[in-house]
């Protein structure tokens, strides 16, 4: 297969960016999207040109490093996969493909397709944990956890922190990311002691980082590679109100 690619190039945080056009041929259907981009980069490097910068590491949809806005969609056209898992069989031969970084006020571009998502870390630092130190904890089976609670907590905990929810949202909201962590810990007995404090602090941190508010468009759920449901956001809102009482 052959493709024409329009890729966002931006030398640095403060410099202006533009789209540049590249072509690639001999792409196999089983190739991943990033392997296709590797191919483009190899050509550039052989010609002595600067490679296109993009983040990726595990290449199996779990580390949350990759994240490209492909033809106007976070992680491209397939549902429930991250960019690194996306295969070229989801595109048609000869197609023009536009590739952009996540665009959000809270995710400044560092270079080309690489953005700064450390805002997510700071939200977790605000309270996305259970404050236990190493040692002195009870036996793992001391507190039974109903299977359905554990399963539901796991559904939320599956979030990979890639930021697709933010990129997909017209408000640049991090609600799905934050709600996933709130839900994960609120559903487990271990998360109860700090439940109210956690939601209050994390929501405040989200606002401080410059993420927008949620206006219920559900774009985040549609693009989440781990299919985290928007019901987590409803739970977060409930938790938030309860915490205020």
């Amino acid at each position: 297969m052959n493709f024409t690619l329009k890729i966002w190039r931006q030398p640095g945080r403060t410099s202006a960016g533009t789209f540049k056009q590249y072509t690639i041929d001999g792409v196999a259907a089983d190739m991943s999207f990033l392997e296709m981009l590797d191919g483009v980069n190899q050509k550039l490097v052989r010609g002595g040109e600067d490679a296109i910068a993009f983040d990726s590491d595990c290449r199996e949809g779990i580390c949350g490093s990759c994240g490209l806005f492909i033809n106007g969609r976070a992680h491209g056209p397939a549902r429930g996969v991250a960019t690194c898992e996306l295969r070229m069989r989801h595109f048609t031969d000869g197609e023009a493909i536009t590739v952009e970084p996540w665009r959000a006020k809270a995710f400044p571009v560092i270079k080309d397709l690489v953005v700064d998502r450390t805002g997510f870390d700071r939200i977790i630092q605000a309270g996305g944990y259970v404050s236990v130190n190493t040692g002195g904890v009870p036996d793992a089976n001391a507190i039974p956890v109903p299977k359905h609670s554990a399963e539901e907590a796991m559904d939320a905990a599956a979030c990979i922190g890639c930021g697709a929810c933010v990129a997909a949202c017209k408000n640049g909201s991090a609600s799905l990311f934050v709600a996933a962590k709130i839900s994960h810990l609120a559903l487990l007995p271990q998360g109860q002691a700090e439940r109210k404090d956690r939601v209050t602090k994390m929501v405040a941190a989200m606002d401080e980082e410059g993420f927008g508010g949620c206006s219920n468009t559900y774009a985040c759920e549609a693009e989440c590679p781990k299919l985290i449901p928007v019901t987590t956001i409803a739970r977060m809102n409930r938790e938030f109100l309860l915490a205020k009482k």
Partner: protein
Amino acid sequence: MPTTLNSQIPGGPIEKRWDDHRFSMKLVNPANKRKYHVIVIGTGLAGSSAAATLAELGYRVTVLSFHESPRRAHSIAAQGGINAPKNYQNDGDSVWRLFYDTVKGGDYRARESNVYRLAQVSGSIIDQCVAQGVPFAREYGGLLDNRSFGGAQVSRTFYARGQTGQQLLLGAYQALSKEIAKKRVTFYPRREMLDLVLIDGRARGVVARNMVDGSLESYTGDAVILATGGYGNVFYLSTNAKASNATAIWRAHKRGAFFGNPCYTQIHPTCIPVGSGFQSKLTLMSESLRNDGRIWVPKKAGDARAPGDIPENERDYYLERLYPSFGNLVPRDVASRRAKEMCDNGHGVGTTKLAVYLDFADAIRRNGADWVREKYGNLFDMYHEITGENAYEVPMRIYPAVHYTMGGLWVDYNLMSTIPGMFVLGEANFSDHGANRLGASALMQGLADGYFIIPYTIGNYLASGTFTPAGTDHAAFRDAEKSVAGVTARLLGAKGKKTVEEYHRELGTLMWDNCGMARTAEKLKKALTEIPLLREDFWKNVTVPGSSDDLNGEVERAHRVADYFELAELMVRDALHREESAGGHFREEYQTSEGEAKRDDEKFSYVAAWEFAGTGAEPVLHKEPLAFEYVKPSQRSYK
């Protein structure tokens, strides 16, 4: 630098060694802890757990990672589970049994005392993780569920669907985040350590490259912990994350840390087979699948029929046939070697004929597709996205792939390397798995090292000496920065024709062909002449475009591949010198009549610890003899 190895193994009965050792170690009093500053490189399970715990104790901690966030470390990708002998299943498990299984599984090439300690503390890991909110799988009564992994006949593996590493790492990352919030840990993202700094013979800091603006930065402390993961990417294709690399441990090796058992590489039996030349990495299908999947090949060599057309009596479930008591759950080295043998003898399947079937038809018939989906759904989805095949309907095709490195920097019982003040944790050290690691034991080891071992042993080191303040203005930092800048300049200055990627692939193929699953003296000698030639060509002919004062992936990779050339050579030397087969190190010349690994305990019951003697120069071999007082070495049998 020491010329003889002192492993610091305490005496007395093995059950009491760790307790006695903890009691005899010096403590740093609480008020003094904040005067000490520890640098931790890496935020995988080992690094995050260590950094969080040290900060909780009161030490000042600086953490560096080449990742953007601590949560992106490679540990996140672990799928199957983590072992602990809780005996919740009442199936006869105990600390003793986990100890025994691990020493035997490692083919009697691990230190008994370390393994015993690992088994001893592993139960506390599960307690800790549950308290942090790790959502492990549970049974209907609300208690924790377990599954079985290779090399064990009990169910002792705790898991969180197929995302165990992710959940454990998030637990450790959250613990770390809580300490960052308290300002007891300072975290520097996108920093790659490129050199270790020694002052008066002790590790006192590192030089790192800021990967965003390319500047070199110096960090100073009273001790340095490397928790930088494994080096499987020497082979180019592996199940490791793309950026996993050996640079931190290799540069420390060049500064004097001995390298233990570099040739011990684990080839995992159940990975998605190599498709074509553009492939950037290999994908693991968790070992847990062997609980319910059955491995088979057509009995007739060259049988090209679709799997569904091959009747039951024309299939060879070779693991069940050869190893009736462990069946599909034999250890990884055994399962991998047998798969290779089947394919070498013409029984391979798929287009490349380098694959065997992993079939769930029986499990689906027995329990239904939904049952399989609940247990392994995400793995089946991943398989589907990559291969386009539905494994609920056709068997998966799998083949062995490079997965883990048992070798690593040599450490003593305190996890300290041969450089005083430099500790090595997790996959980066050589410690507990001998010549073959059992499934679900790497997560256990990383967290044992970080949560429960280093917090004690580092205190003993810090309390035992006096530290003259060493600021980053010390000349040793300038020297290290100069040396790193020199390497970068050479890489940028070559201005050749071949990309870093091309060299890496070439080296990887060379290593896979000659130092992979089946090694011979002849092939190893061939590699030993070819690697230096390729290395020399690399320095002359590589092209690294762009500048070093910028985010530049080519500069990052060039440094890593430069180190792989040197490490590859050491791996081959080690494999050549070890004239026996043990676990993941299989020398074709040394096998039993039944094709099993044949050890030579008389000559090779030791840890090979190599001392660097200059690039291209023959390294110096030091031997740490291994004593087996409790688990008597025998020919491993899984029949």
